[in-house]
């Protein structure tokens, strides 16, 4: 006959026995479990060219694991394909957090995909590294969001400011602004309008166009009609190619001193190669170019390893714009965990807010909403390009840095028509 006391003892032991694997694995043996980083990447869909960034994640993961991991734990990525669709993003990140139980998150690529995620991040108080989302945390203002890209503080204005600083330096007064209707380009154009006002410039044309416009002759004729001093263009890759070709075919008014600013596409190997010398004279934003002022052993080592993988996987063979910053995303997480000696996201965030960290693109410090405290986007001018050989862009001097001043590697050629012909 089992007494009630014996039954209680047996029940307690039984419960402990059943719970032991869970307790041991979650607490005492947590150190053996890998640190999981969750992200979505656009493996398919219109943004699939950004998946070159995944090589950055992989190289960083391999480097960290080869060095013994973080706090003695290996690092692994859990990545899903968001199909370049913002509607897929909330479900993917819910799964990463609630089912895959990842320790930290990295955002999808860009503002269009990141925007629907931010309320979730803020509400659940999650740690996330942002990827290329312009003004990504400006509204949510999460204190656990850190940007991997060099947009700087107040990025809505920081992104276009380099172009307008150059326009101001050459006394440009009349500005034409054209932009794609997509969110990123609209934000950049909005920022451009604000800075033009701040600098006392007159916006003589402000025109948006729908995505996938293939003919820009009407817009270019309208630009020629208003004879601006500078043309600030906020476009996506296919549009950028059509605009550059349109300039060659239709011609541009001699009044235009500088042209470009926020054109996405001429940062990628595919368009640099296909447009080749037609890009000469373009003043445009980017994040990295080969230049003596940007040389570092870390970045050189990165490209030595990136290039053969990218060529094998038919991804951007140059990889200047996106991939190094995907590696930087890993370095931000690494710095947070090593610095705070913890995977507690509050401690990680506290450490990152109070310490500058070393990355392959230089020293980075964050402000209260995780933007870099100092803008380090580059405004370059394409110069001396001959033909369409993509490898010439690996040499310094083809994309000279005009801004920021401390990284300057060449001088601006104006007007735009003269710069187009100079090679």
């Amino acid at each position, binding site marked *: 006959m089992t007494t009630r006391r014996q039954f209680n003892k047996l029940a307690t032991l039984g419960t402990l026995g059943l719970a032991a694997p869970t307790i041991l694995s979650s607490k005492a043996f947590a150190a053996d479990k890998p640190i999981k980083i969750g992200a979505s990447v656009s493996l398919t869909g219109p943004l699939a060219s950004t998946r070159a960034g995944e090589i950055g994640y992989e190289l960083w993961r391999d480097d960290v694991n080869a060095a013994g991991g973080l706090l003695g734990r290996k690092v692994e990525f859990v990545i899903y394909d968001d199909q370049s669709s913002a509607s897929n993003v909330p479900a993917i990140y819910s799964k990463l957090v609630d089912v895959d139980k990842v320790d930290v998150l990295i955002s999808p690529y860009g503002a269009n995909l990141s925007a629907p995620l931010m309320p979730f991040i803020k509400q659940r108080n999650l740690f996330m590294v942002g990827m290329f989302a312009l003004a990504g945390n400006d509204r949510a203002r999460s204190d656990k969001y850190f940007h991997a890209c060099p947009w700087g503080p107040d990025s809505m204005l920081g992104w276009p400011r380099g172009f307008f600083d150059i326009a101001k330096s050459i006394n440009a007064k009349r500005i034409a602004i054209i932009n794609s209707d997509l969110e990123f380009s609209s934000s950049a154009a909005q920022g451009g309008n604000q800075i033009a006002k701040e600098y006392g410039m007159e916006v003589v044309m402000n025109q948006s166009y729908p995505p996938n416009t293939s003919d820009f002759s*009407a817009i270019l004729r309208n630009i*020629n009609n208003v004879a601006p001093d500078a043309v600030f263009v906020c476009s996506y890759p296919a549009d950028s190619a059509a605009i550059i070709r349109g300039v060659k075919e*239709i011609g541009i008014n001699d009044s235009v001193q500088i042209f470009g600013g926020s054109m996405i596409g001429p940062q990628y190997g595919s368009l640099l190669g296909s447009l080749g010398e037609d890009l000469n004279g373009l003043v445009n934003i980017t994040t990295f170019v080969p230049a003596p002022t940007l040389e570092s052993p870390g970045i050189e080592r990165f490209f030595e390893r990136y290039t053969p993988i990218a060529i094998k996987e038919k991804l951007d063979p140059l990889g200047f714009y996106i991939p190094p910053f995907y590696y930087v995303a890993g370095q931000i997480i690494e710095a947070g965990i090593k610095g705070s000696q913890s995977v507690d996201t509050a401690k990680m965030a506290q450490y990152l807010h109070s310490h500058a960290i070393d990355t392959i693109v230089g020293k980075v410090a964050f402000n209260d909403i995780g933007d870099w405290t100092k803008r380090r986007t580059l405004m370059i001018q394409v110069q001396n390009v001959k033909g369409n050989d993509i490898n010439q862009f690996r040499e310094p001097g083809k994309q000279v840095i005009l801004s920021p001043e401390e990284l300057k590697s060449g001088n601006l050629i104006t007007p735009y028509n003269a710069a187009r012909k100079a090679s």
Partner: protein
Amino acid sequence: MTSSLDIFLNAISTGIVLGSIYASIALGLAITFGILHIPNVAHPALVIVGAYFVFFMGQWGVGAIAAALVGLPVFYLLGMALYSFYSRTFERQGQANVLQSLTLFFGLSLVIEIIIALLFGSELKSVDASYVGSSLVLGPITMPYRLLVPALFAPIMIGALWLYLHRTHSGTAIRAVAHDDRALSISGINPTWIKRHAFGIATATAVVGGAALIIMGPVEPFAGRFQIGRVFAIVVLAGMGSIPGTLVVAIMIGIAESFVSAYLTPSWSPGVAFAILLLALGLRPQGLFGATR
């Protein structure tokens, strides 16, 4: 300074060439959907396959137009194979309803996109031609050869196709199969063979449409998605089965888009095709060039 007459003339000429390019992309759908009543939503994806075929041939030094000509028989056979699969899956079992067909071709377009991305990567691909980057200047009109050359494809294709459909026995059979395939089989012609042949022709036009697209600008594996709405609007507005009507309607839409871009705002141009479609179908439900049955 450009005068208002210059802007007007350039808007018209740009609209005509853009419309003609739209027609070369829509032509295959005018055959499959307009004549065979098969809602081949994968046609724009097949046009992108055509563009990548031209790009691939370009790597071997073959020009875009020559590549399109080489691709015609290849895509014709591909189209026949696709129809055979479609026919075996649905038609022979008497289950070829619109929803199932849509699902099949929608799935096919996704598979095509993934295969292209795996084979060629996701980067933009373009072709180089001596005429890209220069323009034909006729008085106040400046017309880029990048648009003008591919704009010539559609009138040539449509003229040849019209002659074929109206002057040959098998062409007449294609038109007949759309009306009554049982009657056609009584006259000793296998309607399945005729439909397969017509689907082959429709798919062959995709390589020409693809050549037009990649000459006009770089393409990526998913670019076909952006063409679906416009090409369906063109085919429906032209009137189901009207091949010359496809060209006329495409040019109408091209001119309307061009005027909206030049005088209002380019942002409204994607809505132009559908605005015209709604307006025209309200007045003439069978389409502008469709016969009343």
